[in-house]
């Protein structure tokens, strides 16, 4: 059934239908609507056989999730920004112990200066924590990704973040079709932990590993991560078959002309400028590039679905023979450029590609179609520098036009 729903509501309902055993909540904007909605469902019984725990910090939210997952429950929490960084130690710990927790990250900037709006710097700070990072292009995918995330995480024994742009998606209302309880029950296997704190078969979890075994432990974690790409693809393909729509996957391809998502779209060709992006800006790029294609401009769009593991091979396949790339990046590696650009560059090493990093939308700066159009035109005209800050205002921070800022005061 297609219905009008806020992104956070859609995620909360889908998570509830994945039947988590323990949900932890600590408030931080912009993820709060998700855990608020889950708290209502926990009270009404819509979320049954589930403990909803109000904890005292994000660090404890992840720690409670660790205990719950280790004790054999499907565990879920949500956070953003400072909250993700406050729980950082436990984020790494969950991955090291192979606990398949699923966490929504409502992507938000990291201070200082404090800023509650969207960019990707929070999740990027955790890129090497050993979690899967799946990015939603829109609210439909944000909801659907949670089903795929639980399935893939539990098969792999690797925790998963579902990253959705804070406010831009979490607080936006769209026409969506949620996976039903029956569909999810048929799709998602019950949680069957590979290891658990079991009184019948006692085990010690979380031992100390010395220099003689730490490298091997990390190597095994690395091998498991290499498996992750195939597992994510397989579950995404199963999802497409079961639900009749595309979600997840490592890399999203788009029809050259309609810009509709299409897994069978051909790779970019040698004359194409390929725009690579991740998160909700993909939607704005669809809207921006379709008219440019109609003008006959050689532009293609490639979306990153899984940022971790980084899908080098799938990305190279989608980029085809294109050697001219623009990466629209929502996080900044200080002194270098866009964070995603670094990953794309590594994937395309020795291919002779020209890669532009367009840093856009930091701290909630709206990414405008006109600005993207301008950047793409400049790239086509060989006028775009290797690193460009979209809509950077020289000479201070002037008065913005109405609508181009979040709040006019």
């Amino acid at each position, binding site marked *: 059934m297609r219905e009008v729903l806020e992104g956070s509501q859609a995620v909360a309902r889908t998570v509830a239908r994945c039947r988590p055993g323990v949900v932890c909540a600590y408030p931080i904007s912009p993820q709060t609507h998700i855990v608020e909605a889950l708290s209502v469902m926990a009270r009404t019984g819509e979320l049954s056989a589930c403990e909803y725990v109000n904890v005292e910090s994000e660090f404890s939210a992840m720690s409670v999730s660790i*205990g*719950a997952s280790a004790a054999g429950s499907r565990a879920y929490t949500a956070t953003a920004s400072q909250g993700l960084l406050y729980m950082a130690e436990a984020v790494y710990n969950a991955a090291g112990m192979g606990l398949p927790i699923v966490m929504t990250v409502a992507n938000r900037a990291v201070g200082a200066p404090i800023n509650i709006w969207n960019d990707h710097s929070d999740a990027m700070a955790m890129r090497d924590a050993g979690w899967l990072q799946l990015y939603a292009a829109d609210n439909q995918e944000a909801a659907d990704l949670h089903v795929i995330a639980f399935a893939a995480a539990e098969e792999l024994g690797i925790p998963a973040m579902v990253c959705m742009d804070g406010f831009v998606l979490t607080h936006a209302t769209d026409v969506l079709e949620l996976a039903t309880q029956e569909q999810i029950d048929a799709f998602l296997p019950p949680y069957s932990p590979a290891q658990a704190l079991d009184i019948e*078969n006692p085990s010690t979890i979380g*031992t100390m590993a010395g220099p003689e075994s730490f490298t091997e432990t990390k190597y095994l974690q690395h091998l498991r991560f290499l498996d992750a790409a195939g597992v994510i693809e397989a579950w995404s393909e199963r999802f497409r078959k079961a639900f009749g729509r595309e979600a997840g996957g490592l890399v999203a391809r788009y029809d050259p002309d309609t810009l509709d998502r299409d897994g069978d779209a051909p790779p970019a060709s040698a004359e194409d400028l390929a725009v690579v992006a991740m998160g909700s800006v993909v939607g704005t790029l669809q809207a921006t590039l379709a008219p440019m294609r109609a003008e006959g401009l050689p532009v293609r769009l490639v979306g990153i679905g899984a940022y971790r593991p980084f899908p080098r091979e799938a990305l190279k396949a989608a980029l085809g023979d294109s050697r001219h790339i623009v990466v629209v990046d929502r996080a900044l590696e200080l002194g270098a450029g866009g964070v995603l650009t670094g990953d794309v560059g590594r994937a395309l090493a020795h291919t002779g590609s020209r890669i532009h990093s367009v840093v856009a939308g930091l701290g909630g700066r709206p990414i405008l179609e006109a600005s993207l159009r301008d950047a793409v035109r400049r790239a086509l005209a060989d006028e775009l520098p290797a690193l460009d800050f979209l809509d950077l205002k020289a000479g201070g921070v002037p008065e913005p036009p109405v609508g181009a800022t979040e709040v006019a005061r």
Partner: protein
Amino acid sequence: MSTVHIPFLQTGTLAVGGRLLDDAERSVQSHADRPSSLTKGHRACQGCAEALAARWVMDTAVEATDGRLVVANATGCLEVFSTLYPESAWKPPWIHSLFANAAAVATGIASSLHAQGRDDVRVLAQGGDGGTVDIGLAAVSGMFERNDDVLYVCYDNQGYMNTGVQRSSATPASARTATTPAVGRHPGAPQGTGKSMVKIAMAHEIPYVASATVADLRDLEHKVRTAMAIRGARYLHVLVPCPLGWGSQSSESISLSRAAVQSGIFPVVEARAGELTDVQRIRERADVEEYLRPQARFAHLFKPGGEDGLQRWRALAEANIRHYDLLGGRP
């Protein structure tokens, strides 16, 4: 088991496990089939009171729950000396996650068990004073105020011994540590600092709070058993001398614990719902010197200029005696 008060002379020592008693009233450790939850192969120092206390606590909890016990452990000596991969000295299902989060991990386990309908399986969390009173305090407090069904045990050796004896907020005044060296005009840990975790726990008005030492293992056992008979958040604070950190002989861990209690420095108490319900009276009053002098960390108190510090210790003991009525009205 009901509590039976046994005259000291009748048993010889509290540590023999009560072999003169009826079988049902003997200590867990006196039985051939004791759980040995913390078993052979661990790497604790000689005279480590934490290892001794943990063994008694765990075995009692295992017996009290008929083996239905899951343990969450904070980072610290106890975790390091018991679980160096690929070995483990723990028999119960046991998890170590991080330094600051044992209480939260325990909450997660308890929540999971409840969601699974396994309320018969109980949860015990344990950590040192650093993981409890310092870095883990927020998680401990959160677990307390939610009244989660967890027994949290703090083994208090009064410092960060695992990292080489640095000061914690449980380090007593004057104590020499690696970060409060016994040099300068005010040697050792500063006066007027530190906090009482027992009082903090009581302020949460949780169902059960108690303190104990390894000098009275039957009392420790009794408190664990009492705690395991109660649902909700419970806290047990155990003083555990550390020969390495305290600069004491490995043979002195029991006698130092006893001196701490008998001098009034470490009150052994029980509280329910925030109200003090029992206090272990001083049996034979000891001077604070009996506690302080064997410890090299207090050596500067017994050198010229140390009188002032010593006086403060006497005042602390007097204050405790008054506050908790440790002499039971006796002079």
